[in-house]
Structure formats: structure tokens, C-alpha cells
């Protein structure tokens, strides 16, 4: 096809090749698409930053010349990558991930107002620069009570708040008013509801909506890994190469006030009335699981979704190997969801 000896191939920035046990994947985080490719092509793409197409063919002893030409040509046609005779002008992206925030987000379970001092926890999180907050109200609280609990967030550094509220019988209108008064609220879900559906705010220029669901959000609610929930950005993928994206810089406070990596995890790190969140967040014990990213976990390390998957499962160690406690339905060795 192309005969230029110096021709190099580059993927566009948004496209990341990932090798799996059976199948490789290209994650296109810009178009929000992922598609399967043979693992051999992933190997070719991994070499592409340092070698010309001809030289890569040579490294495979010219066994796959036609296939390589065909696949790279197809990727160029699909707008996934491009050929260039100026490789030095297109350096590889630096894949390091960094964050200025010690704690990125927090999940708080709230069952009864007296179990722990929510306002104090919110103030502590603010001091840590926490960007996101998810409040899970496990029992019906009135919108008034919720508003009062949220008061300390008003002038905080928090950037977004998600609310999961057990159905209190009030109309969506009340929740819209709550969100109008607190621009940080970006997501409103009413759970344990008799109705299921979506109510959008009728005010023009207001993208707010309330989602009603009959699902119950209970204590230690584990997340289920589903491919439709995979999200991707350059930030997430690069973070996932270094950290466990389901747990990194996240704090959970369960319904009884105990600090955990995630609400469903067994290990507790003390009660918020007795320990400071900052001390816990800075402790090696609490950070241990932040570092156990999917490349270090059995099965996940062979899964092509490992840089997209937000699974926050607890992790157990056996004979120096790490396993996720909540296993997902994906079998990377057969490349099927079971």
C-alpha cells in the first residue's frame, strides 16, 4: 500500500490501545467509543512511537505485512490515527496523572441525623479541598432537612454534589428549588420510589432533572460493573494506569459514621467522632488500596476494560496475589459477559 520507508503511524490523542487476554481494545475517549481489535495490532501500535511502519513489519519478520498495512489503513480511514513522515513533530503523550487534591470525592451514607455529625464531616472535607460529594439518604428525609444538612457546602470548595434520596413523598419541584439554591447540586436521584421515571425542570435554561427509581439504595450498596457505565477521559485512563480509579482519593462514611475506602468494604478506619478524616486520608493503610490498580489485580490485569472500569470492589490478597472481592460478570479469557 504505502511504500515510503520513513512513514510512521500515530494514533490521535484520544485513542488508547489496550491489550486483553483474548481481544484488544481501542478506547476513543473523544468520540466516547471503544472497539475491539486483535491483540497483535495493539502490539504494532505500541511500537509505533519509536519505529517506522516498515521497521515494525521487520520486527514481525514480515509475516504480517499485509495485515499491518490493511489495519493501519483502516484506522486512518476511520479517523483513529494518521500516517506521517515527520515523526519527531508528533511526540508521544506523557501518560502521568497528577492531582492537586488529597481527596477527590466522598460518599456519605445518612440513615438518621444522630449517627454522626454530618456538618462536621462536610467542613473537614472542604478543608481537604474535596471536589465531589455523594450523599445517600437511606431513609426518607424531608427536602427541608436535606437543605439544612447541605448548608455547610454553600461556600465550600466543593464543585459537585450528587444526591440519592429515599422517596419522601414530596414533589420534584421541592428538589428543584433545593438545587436552585445550591448550584453545586448536579444530580438528583429519588430511590425506593413507587414510580420510576424522570422529571425535568420546566424552567428555561435549567438542565436539572430528578430521576425516580424503584431501586433501593441501602447500607453498603455495592456498585455493579456494567459496560454501559464505563466512562472515559484522558484523565481517567491515565489515572487508571497508576491508581485504582474506583477508590483513589475517595472517602466513604457509612451509615454508622465509620470511615472506609468504600461503604461496602469490610475494613474500617475509625469513627468520624474519634479520628480526623485528613489523618485517615493521609495514612498508608487507607491509601494502600488506592495503589492497587487493575494492572495489579488478577483477572482485571487481563481485561481490556481495565482502564475504563470504575469497580470499587474490596480487594483481597492471597499468596502475594490480589483479587477483587466482588467479581464482575466479564470473562476476559473468553471475551464474554456472563
Amino acid at each position, binding site marked *: 500500500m504505502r511504500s515510503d520507508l520513513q512513514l510512521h503511524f500515530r494514533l*490521535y490523542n*484520544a485513542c488508547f490501545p489496550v491489550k486483553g487476554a483474548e481481544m484488544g481494545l481501542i478506547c476513543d475517549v473523544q468520540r466516547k467509543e471503544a472497539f475491539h481489535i486483535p491483540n497483535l495490532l495493539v502490539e504494532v501500535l505500541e511500537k509505533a512511537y519509536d519505529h517506522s511502519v516498515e521497521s515494525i513489519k521487520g520486527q514481525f519478520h514480515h509475516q504480517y505485512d499485509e495485515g499491518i498495512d490493511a489495519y493501519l489503513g483502516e484506522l486512518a480511514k476511520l479517523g483513529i490515527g*494518521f500516517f506521517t513522515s515527520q515523526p519527531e513533530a508528533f*511526540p508521544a503523550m506523557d501518560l*502521568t496523572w497528577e492531582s492537586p*487534591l488529597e481527596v477527590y470525592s466522598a460518599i456519605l451514607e445518612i440513615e438518621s441525623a444522630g449517627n454522626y455529625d454530618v456538618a462536621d464531616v462536610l467542613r473537614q472535607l472542604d478543608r481537604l479541598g474535596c471536589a465531589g460529594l455523594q450523599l445517600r439518604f437511606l431513609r426518607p428525609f424531608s427536602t427541608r432537612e436535606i437543605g439544612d444538612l447541605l448548608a455547610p457546602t454553600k461556600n465550600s470548595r466543593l*464543585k459537585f454534589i450528587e444526591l440519592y434520596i429515599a422517596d419522601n413523598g414530596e414533589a420534584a419541584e421541592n428538589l428543584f428549588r433545593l438545587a436552585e439554591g445550591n448550584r453545586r447540586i448536579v444530580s438528583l436521584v429519588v430511590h425506593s420510589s413507587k414510580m420510576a421515571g424522570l422529571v425535568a425542570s420546566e424552567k428555561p435554561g435549567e438542565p436539572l432533572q430528578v430521576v425516580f427509581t424503584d431501586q433501593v439504595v441501602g447500607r453498603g450498596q455495592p456498585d455493579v460493573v456494567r459496560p454501559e457505565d464505563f466512562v472515559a477521559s*484522558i484523565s481517567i485512563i491515565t489515572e487508571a494506569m497508576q491508581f485504582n480509579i474506583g477508590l483513589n482519593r475517595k472517602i466513604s462514611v457509612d451509615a454508622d459514621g465509620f470511615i472506609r475506602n468504600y461503604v461496602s468494604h469490610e475494613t474500617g478506619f475509625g469513627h468520624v467522632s474519634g479520628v480526623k478524616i485528613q489523618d485517615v486520608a493521609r495514612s498508608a493503610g487507607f491509601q494502600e488500596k488506592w495503589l492497587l490498580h487493575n494492572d495489579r489485580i488478577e483477572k482485571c490485569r487481563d481485561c481490556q476494560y481495565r482502564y475504563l472500569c470504575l469497580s470499587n470492589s474490596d480487594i483481597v490478597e492471597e499468596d502475594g496475589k490480589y483479587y477483587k472481592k466482588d467479581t464482575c460478570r466479564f470473562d476476559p479469557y473468553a471475551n464474554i459477559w456472563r
Partner: protein
Amino acid sequence: MSAAIPVRHLVFSTAYDPSTDHVLDWMASMGGQFLRLNTNNQYIEKEDALISAPAPGMEKFRSIWFRKICGLARQDWILGDSLREDRKAFRENLDFFNQYIERERKTFYDYFYRSFQSERILSPYEPIQLNKLDVLRLAAATGMDTPKTLVTRKKDVLERFRAEIPQGVINKSIAEHLFFEGPPPEKNMYSNYTEEITDEIIREMPDTFDFSLFQEKLDKAFEARVFYLDGACYSMAIFSQDNTRTSLDFRRYDKKNPNRLANFRLDERQEAQVHSLMQQLGLNTGSLDLVRTRDGRMVFLEVNPAGQFGMVSQPCNYHLEKRIASFLTAGNER
């Protein structure tokens, strides 16, 4: 005010600007104490009492960042509703009166912003108003490849220019692009954009017209956006040619088929030229637009002193927010 102000870094921005938030998060993590002043709606939120009377001897800041200064927004226009007399005369000259108000404000704000002092200022307030024609000539003098450009009011001059350029000419704004919103309920957004001026268009043009800028059309392989910060270039290639709708002007975004991006590097000589140009303009940061043509030219188009670094930083993972924070907090330790 006599109490000492425990602030070392000053940031002018607007409310709800995620790029500013991100840089400030980094500054906080580096131990930098800052004061953020949001300039929306042409008034300084909250802290105005602290600084509304800048006087000699006021606190010198460790650093100042003029991230964003808001202009007069259409909704801030004076509509004359409260006038008792001559309302009609006023209403018929709304544009004129508001231009006057704008000049009044600008003169005050020029004074106001300049009165904040620091040894370390990122995007100095003063040179932010660049003359694009000056910049183009300076770039050419620096040795950069610039497009053949003509400003004229006469059709015959344009025709002669066109005859010299076989690949065609385009027309674009001499200064800034225009954006405005149409009437409700549709509230369509209008803007002008770069357009090719075909021979047919030229034929239909009147003999004279108002000052207009014409430029050789470039056969684009890709565009390059270079974010310049304190001597270093962070570049990104933008591939938009495949799509006819965006082939002339990147501003006409296409959502379904977005432009593709890649980390990019200018060669050493080109980077040195960028550095030299920015120094001559008195800018320590800014965003430069260049075009790579199919025949291998790297053509400089313009400098935007208040360049959006987020649109380069995220796709190329350049960590510019952190680099800006490091620049601003340098010298943090007294």
C-alpha cells in the same frame, strides 16, 4: 484599612471558570495563599472594600494573574428605562450612549487594574489589547512564515491581489470576531467566520467597501495551537481538513465529527521565533495559531494573549494548570 492582608497571590478571573478553579487547587496544594477576584458584571465581588481604593503603599502581591477580565455584557446595557425626560432621544441612540459608558468604565478599569503591582505578573494587563496587523508584521520580521495579507477598501486592488494568488483568497476580521445573539424566542447565535472570497463573490462586490482584510488561502494539512508559557511551547495539532465544514475556520465546530488532536512539537528554530515574538510583544503567556500547509510551510496566523490553556492541556496531558500554578507561586517562600 490598617490590618495586614495575609494574601500573596492575586488572581483576576470570572466566577464558575473551571480552568481557574483547577489552577487554584494546584496553588493551594503548593501552599500558595491567594485572593481570587471575579470580574463578572464589571464589579469586583466581595473583596471590593479591600481594594477599591488602591493607594501608594498598598500591598504588593507575590504574583498577579490576569486570567480573565470581563467586558461590558449586553445585558448590562443601559436601556434608559429610568429616564424621565427625553427618553426617546436616548433610546434611539442606545448604542452610542453605551459606547460612552463602556469608555468610561474602561478608562477607570485600565487605571484600576494597572494599580495592582507585582514583580511576577502572568499575562500583564496592558498588552492584552494587541493589534493583529502589528502582530502579523512583527512575526514576519522575526522570520516566521506569515500569509500574504492585504487590507483594502477597493475592489481593483483586491482583484490584483487575487490574480497573484492562484490558490485563492479568504476574508476575515481585522480585529476580533463578532458574536451576538438574535432576538427571542429563537435566540440564535450569530458570528462571522473566515470565508473564501471566490471570483464570483469579487465580481459582485461594489467598487469600494469598508476596510477589509484579505489573505492568501492556505492549503491546510492541519492547524497547530501553541500555548506559550514563560519561555516554553506546548503544542497541539488539530486535524480538521477532512471535514469541509471546518476546513476554513476552526470556530465552526462540528459535534458529530470532532476535530482530531495530537501532541505536536515545533522545530527548534520555530520555537525560538515564537519566543522572540512573545518577548517583543511583552507577553509571558498566550496562545498562538499556526497552519501547516500540505507543501510543508508552517504559517503563523495570530496570537491570543488570553489563550485558553484548558483546550490544549487536557487533550495533550500537558499539566498546564500545574505549570501555571508553579509559575505563580514561585517565590512563595519569602
